[in-house]
């Protein structure tokens, strides 16, 4: 089994600030982390490897600063890491990203055929959930999105069974390898690396692939040029004109606060009054 996991390094959105005037993201000092959903993808791949043996390659398209993310993936147990990095990849939207990653996976497949590709459900910066489906389409792989559990993989029969979160229930799907799986959050607990694993990770070589190494055929399909969508403007959410109307609270007498709030609601908000009316006990 050869499993490829696509991961992305993203700014920790808990630390993101927006410049109040220019409305641009202030990246200074914002820590970069592995996209949280991708950790579940890594873990799912490693569990399969634990069970069936094989080789797990982590891959990321991004700037050279993304290397620590790949190293961390190695410390968790991945065997090999490839950073697909080239100036021309900058400014890519999901279509162009999936083109580059698909090309790189195809090239990697010449070294060692790829049976499964894992991605996260979505990233926390782009938040599109489109790159996984895009890669699958381009590699003509079967696509399994929002997977909450890998039920079974049979390398001999080249089949995989998964549980997929759908509206109102869970689909149990069976398909043929090679397939691409996007993993749902919380679908498994991420492991903790041992000391020897940490040493292996800091000493590992992360391969850097440029457009030639990645086997990019059509340079017009990468980066900004290869991206049909463009961001035409960025802005902050509008603050509401007025702040909340404060209902004074006295810890010694919470009931009068509640009564005064209720009174205001009934007087000022017809929709709430209507809802409450419907809920009155018939007595």
């Amino acid at each position, binding site marked *: 089994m050869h499993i490829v996991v696509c991961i992305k390094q993203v*700014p920790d959105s*808990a630390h*993101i600030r*927006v410049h109040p005037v220019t409305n641009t*993201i202030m990246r200074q000092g914002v820590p970069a982390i592995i996209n949280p959903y991708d950790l579940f993808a890594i873990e799912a791949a490693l569990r399969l490897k634990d069970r069936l043996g094989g080789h797990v390659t982590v891959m990321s398209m991004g700037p050279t600063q993304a290397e620590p993310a790949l190293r961390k993936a190695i410390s968790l147990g991945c065997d090999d890491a490839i950073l697909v990095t080239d100036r021309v990849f900058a400014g890519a939207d*999901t*279509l162009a990203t999936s083109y580059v990653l698909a090309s790189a996976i195809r090239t990697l497949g010449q070294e060692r055929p790829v049976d499964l590709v894992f991605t996260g459900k979505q990233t926390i*910066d782009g*938040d599109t*959930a*489109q*790159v*996984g*489906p*895009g890669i699958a*389409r*381009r590699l003509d792989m*079967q*696509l*399994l*999105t929002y997977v909450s559990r890998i039920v079974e993989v049979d390398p001999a029969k080249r089949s995989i*069974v998964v549980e997929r979160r*759908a*509206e*109102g229930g*869970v689909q*149990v*799907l*069976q398909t*043929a390898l090679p397939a691409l799986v996007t993993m749902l959050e919380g679908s498994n607990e991420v492991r903790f690396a041992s000391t020897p694993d940490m040493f292996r990770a800091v000493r590992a070589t992360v391969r850097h692939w440029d457009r030639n190494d990645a086997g990019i055929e059509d340079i017009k399909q990468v980066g900004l040029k290869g991206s*049909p*969508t*463009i*961001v*035409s*403007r960025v*802005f*902050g*959410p*509008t*603050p*509401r004109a007025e*702040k*909340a*109307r404060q*209902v004074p*609270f006295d*810890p010694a007498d919470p009931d009068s*606060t*509640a009564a005064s*709030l*209720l009174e*205001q*609601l009934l007087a000022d*908000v017809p*929709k*709430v009054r209507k*809802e*409450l009316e419907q809920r*009155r006990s018939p007595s």
Partner: protein
Amino acid sequence: MTATPPAKPIKKRKIKLDEHLLAYRGVWVFIENERGHVHPVSWELMGQGRQLAEQLQVELCAVVMGAPGAELDALCESAFHYGADRCYRVASPVLRLYRNEPFTQALTGLVNAHKPEILLLGATALGRDLAGSVATTLKTGLTADCTELAIDPEDRCLLSTRPTFGGSLLCTIVTLNYRPQMATVRHRVMPMPEPQPERRGLIVDFDPGLVEDNVVTRLLEFLPDSQDNTPHLPYAEIVVSGGKGLGKAENFRLVWALADVLGAEVGATRAAIHAGWISADRQVGQTGKTVRPALYIAAGISGAIQHRVGMEASDCIIAINSDPNAPIFDFAHYGIVGDCVQVLPALTRAFARHLGKPVKEIA
């Protein structure tokens, strides 16, 4: 979420459509139906699609896919009621239940045959699975999880607005020289239109040419969520939500008690869920559910942007927070600065009395 006008556009875009793309016309909405149930986001999109189509002076078309039969035909009728001028009916036994591969083939084929300029889907598990595959096959742009759609009158471009960077910012995205312009749209951000039962339209059949034996993926089983446990948050008219400020797991019962008296659904912040106080399907916010009730009561919730985007469309928001500077007071309608452990039981008593329900003592 409404938007402030831009300081200035990042750059003026130049549209230069290829000759063959000029023929693309019309606004399409993919009607998502599974097991005889139409996802409401599809009807919400019809409402929005109507406005876009009128602005562009083109037809609004619904795309209905599934196994042939009365159910599918009834769906087309409903699509007309919700505003469609035309309905593309793609019937095949292979499309009885959703699978990525045949649906992608069918929808891609339909687009290539009838050339819409805009194609909208719900940002659901199904919609995002399908949209990503179709857009890649068509090599066109796709904007995910939008909260606002508009048309640029100057160049007929679809302006898709969506939260980004965890909701800290909004961005407007356009698809330049490619057609159709695709977007998935979040559930519950656009109002549900009133159906007009007398409306009729034109049905156009499309044969996707699918053969079951060529489809690799099989659906072995469908395990439905047990009906009684799943919260109906998106549709609740009253929601009581608790956050990290409740302090400990036991205090969540104060939220349940108030919800009980009000006949409300219970929601929570991600922080409360991470603390293990309540199950994950009750999360409200960017990575949880979007709600738009008449009344939203937020107890011990700071009002982080990721939570806010999921609940700020509520008609009336009451915030209880011990910190007068908590961001939630910036967008709540009523605020109580105080300890929610004291305030919640008082509210429960007040509402119980008002509604004529027995006042259970919750110490």
